[in-house]
């Protein structure tokens, strides 16, 4: 159950019934009212219709995750009710479509507040069943203190474009909902925090944020291949990159996407692609080529449940092995992993910069729950981002593409540069690019290619350590699980348990010394992550002297804070 000022509303129903737009409107209205928002959704697996859930967590303070469960549940239909009724624990509230909906609930459990509201009926009376979500919004706004003014502004902005008639109709439905809400006798105390001074924020999903990071990072070429849950990144880029004169193409498969990325990058353009695990697996040979040929390239992997087709729309953090070691031969790359939507923007810029700086493939890991999670984040300021361009040849003297240099990074030459003609090749080569299988050369070249990224562990921002001094439990985690752990650590401390967190974003090369230093201050180390094998635990065991306690789940859903809190209590 969330604390004061912190409310979690879940809306669920049939896809297409307006569940998503209801959620979006509420989230936007709250953000406009100066509140922090973190949303989480699951989509119907079917193409049309099917169960759909949208959860909004809203608070006057920063929210790091989707929360344990809901406080308020709004059931649009019987299926939604059936799938969520086990979560109706004492203290929760349910608003449901009755009479006139498609179900009548079982006996309401003790301690649960239930508000039957005839939402479908009201919508039908207004002349359009489709306006049910507007009615619901009116009901919820009155019952739970959702800022009416900002909600009205959001609705107006949205429907104004469709003409006055549409706008008026929707506002009428909204008013009707408010009327119904006012007629309900409120007995619970759930309410959205009051409006505060609005902040300079945007509200955006993880996938859109990656696209925004790409734009801010100076991306020039994107090659796409559709795959859940990454496709929205390509859509964002397709919409906006032509405004900068850039290019997005959809390739025939992921091998072709990464191939096109390497070609465009060789030709001098900042290039990237996005995919999910199955696509990344297909790209693995090309990533080896990019490493060998020292070609900058960014691949964003929005992880999903696997293996194989797996759970395409569900959450999992299970591509760490693939991202770090999914290559033939010895071919490491830079692997970054984001925690939240803000990271999706900022670290996409970092990732593009690293690709350019180190002339190698960079993999940025996001995940299925972040992909569709919308969050309020400070509005990015384009001028605050420093963009890195690859080292280019100055045209002096004879050109050696793979020349050994102090920082092991060799200048590149774009096609069309006189005197810079050279080969980018997957065959082992000497400084000029000519094939060479001399043992000493291969060793030196591997040393160069590994060496140039090794220093990143010292230069990239230090891993965030949450907490100070000695601790009974140290929790190391990655990806969107970090947000869950942040709250768990807070709660543990509130209960008097000395807990610390360690939140790496640079997954490879691994900042081993920082892991060791952190572990030295903790009696026990717990590593929660959403995969079966405990992939980060594995790397910790392999690369450090730490012997962590893995805590893995893989049910297609993220952790929630109480799971972590309970686990800590169990292992202490």
């Amino acid at each position, binding site marked *: 159950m969330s604390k004061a000022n912190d409310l979690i509303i879940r809306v669920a129903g049939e896809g297409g019934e307006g569940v998503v737009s209801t959620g979006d409107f509420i*989230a*936007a*209205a709250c953000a*406009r009212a100066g509140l922090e928002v973190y949303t989480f959704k699951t989509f119907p697996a079917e193409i049309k219709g099917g169960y759909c859930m949208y959860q909004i967590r809203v608070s006057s303070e920063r929210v790091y995750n989707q929360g344990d469960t809901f406080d308020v549940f709004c059931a649009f239909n019987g299926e939604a009710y059936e799938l969520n009724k086990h979560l109706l624990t004492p203290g929760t509230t349910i608003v449901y479509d009755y009479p006139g909906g498609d179900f009548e609930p079982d006996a309401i459990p003790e301690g649960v507040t239930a508000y039957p509201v005839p939402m479908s009926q009201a919508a039908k009376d207004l002349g359009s069943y489709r306006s049910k979500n507007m009615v619901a919004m009116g009901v919820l706004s009155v019952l739970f203190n959702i800022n009416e003014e*900002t909600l009205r502004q*959001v609705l107006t902005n949205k429907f104004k474009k469709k003409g006055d008639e549409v706008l008026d109709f929707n506002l009428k439905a909204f008013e009707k909902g408010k009327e119904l809400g006012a007629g309900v006798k409120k007995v619970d105390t759930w309410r959205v925090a009051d409006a505060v001074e609005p902040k300079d*924020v*945007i*509200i*955006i999903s993880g996938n*859109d944020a990656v696209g*925004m990071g790409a*734009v*801010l990072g100076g991306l*020039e*070429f994107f090659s796409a291949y559709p795959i859940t849950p990454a496709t929205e990144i390509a859509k964002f880029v397709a919409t906006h990159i*032509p*405004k*900068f*004169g*850039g*290019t997005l*193409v959809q*390739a*025939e*498969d992921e*091998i*072709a*996407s990464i*191939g*096109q*990325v*390497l*070609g*465009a*990058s*060789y*030709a*001098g*353009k900042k*290039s990237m692609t996005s995919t999910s695990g199955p696509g990344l697996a297909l790209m693995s040979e*090309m990533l080896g*080529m990019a490493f060998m040929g020292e070609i900058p390239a960014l691949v964003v992997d929005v992880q999903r449940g696997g293996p194989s087709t797996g759970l395409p729309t569900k959450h999992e953090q299970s591509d760490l092995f693939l991202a770090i070691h999914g290559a033939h031969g010895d071919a490491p790359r830079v692997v970054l992993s984001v925690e939240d939507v803000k990271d999706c923007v900022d670290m996409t810029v970092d990732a593009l910069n690293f690709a350019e700086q180190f002339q190698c493939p960079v993999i940025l890991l996001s995940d299925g729950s972040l992909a569709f999670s919308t969050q309020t984040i400070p*509005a*990015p300021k*384009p001028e605050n981002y420093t963009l890195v361009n690859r080292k280019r040849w100055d045209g002096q003297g004879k050109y050696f593409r793979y020349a050994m240099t102090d920082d092991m990074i060799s200048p590149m030459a*774009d*096609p*069309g*540069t*006189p005197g*810079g*003609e*050279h*080969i*980018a*090749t*997957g*065959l082992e080569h000497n400084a000029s690019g*000519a094939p060479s299988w001399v043992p000493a050369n291969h060793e030196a070249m591997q040393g160069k290619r590994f060496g140039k990224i090794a220093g990143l562990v010292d230069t990239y921002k230090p891993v965030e350590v949450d907490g100070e001094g000695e601790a009974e439990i140290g929790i190391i985690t990655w990806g969107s699980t970090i947000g869950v752990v942040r709250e768990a650590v807070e709660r543990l401390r509130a209960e008097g348990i000395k807990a610390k967190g360690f939140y790496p974003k640079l997954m490879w090369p691994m900042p081993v010394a920082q892991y060791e230093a952190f572990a030295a201050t903790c009696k026990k180390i717990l590593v929660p992550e959403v995969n079966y094998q405990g992939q980060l635990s594995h790397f910790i065991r392999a690369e450090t002297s730490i012997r962590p306690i893995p805590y893995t789940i893989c049910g297609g859903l993220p952790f929630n804070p109480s799971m972590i809190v309970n686990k800590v209590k169990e292992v202490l």
Partner: protein
Amino acid sequence: MSVAALHKKEMAPKDYKSDVNVVWCPGCGHHGILNGIMRALSELGVDPTNLVNVSGIGCSSRTPYFMQSYKMHTLHGRAGPVATGVQLARPDQLVCITGGDGDGFAIGGGHMPHMARRNVNMTYILFDNGIYGLTKGQYSPTSRRELKAYTTPYGGPDDPMNPLLYMLTYGATYVAQAFAGKPKVCADLIKGAMAHKGFSYVNIYSQCVTYNRIDTIQYYRDLMREIPEGHDTSDLGAAMELARGDGEGHRPMGLLYQVERETLDERLASIVKLVGGHEGYDKNKIINLFRP
């Protein structure tokens, strides 16, 4: 091809050679094709600085090493997508793929239709020797069934494909075929291909003297028939008819098909034009779309 790369240099064919010595077997047809390519470049006056040669893996895919230019030696079967990326990133450059039948039609077969269909403005020269040369003689998608190769000691179980029909079907806008024993024909067709705006495909039969003992120079010579004068190269039906070969199993030599169609880079450029794209576009405009 791009205009920028054309008529920029007075260079003899041999001036396009690189320092790397050609490593093909003496007697390999690939030598003649390389000469044809260099001759075409010389006649077009291509500046090697504005030329990007891309290849996959195979004996034929080593071609870029032997030439002076920007070049990429990529992965088995993947030259097409990589070259597409180069072309889209730098439409002002001349982009050329050289590769083998195995590289192009076996492992890379999934990419072939899409280069053609999208009309990527580049030239694909396929060295068709009906064998995997570099891996020492396994059968390829263009091998004849009679060929007893390394992995087909009793002959091949499947029928060879027809590269010309394939490329015509998928919409290549320039389709030609030659034979390494006719370097002048090769040079002319390659020259036409490079000068063509759009995706141009030149299939060149090339004897592998080391591993394909049945597709000899003699065999290819008897196989080829010059395309009759008066063939209408803008007639897709007629081109396909030619590509099928005549009733006696001969194969056409010459230009089968050439039409003009908008290229992929042109279409992408028109999207940029449509939205009024320019480098200095204010990123804040995009950020503002996400304000609540």
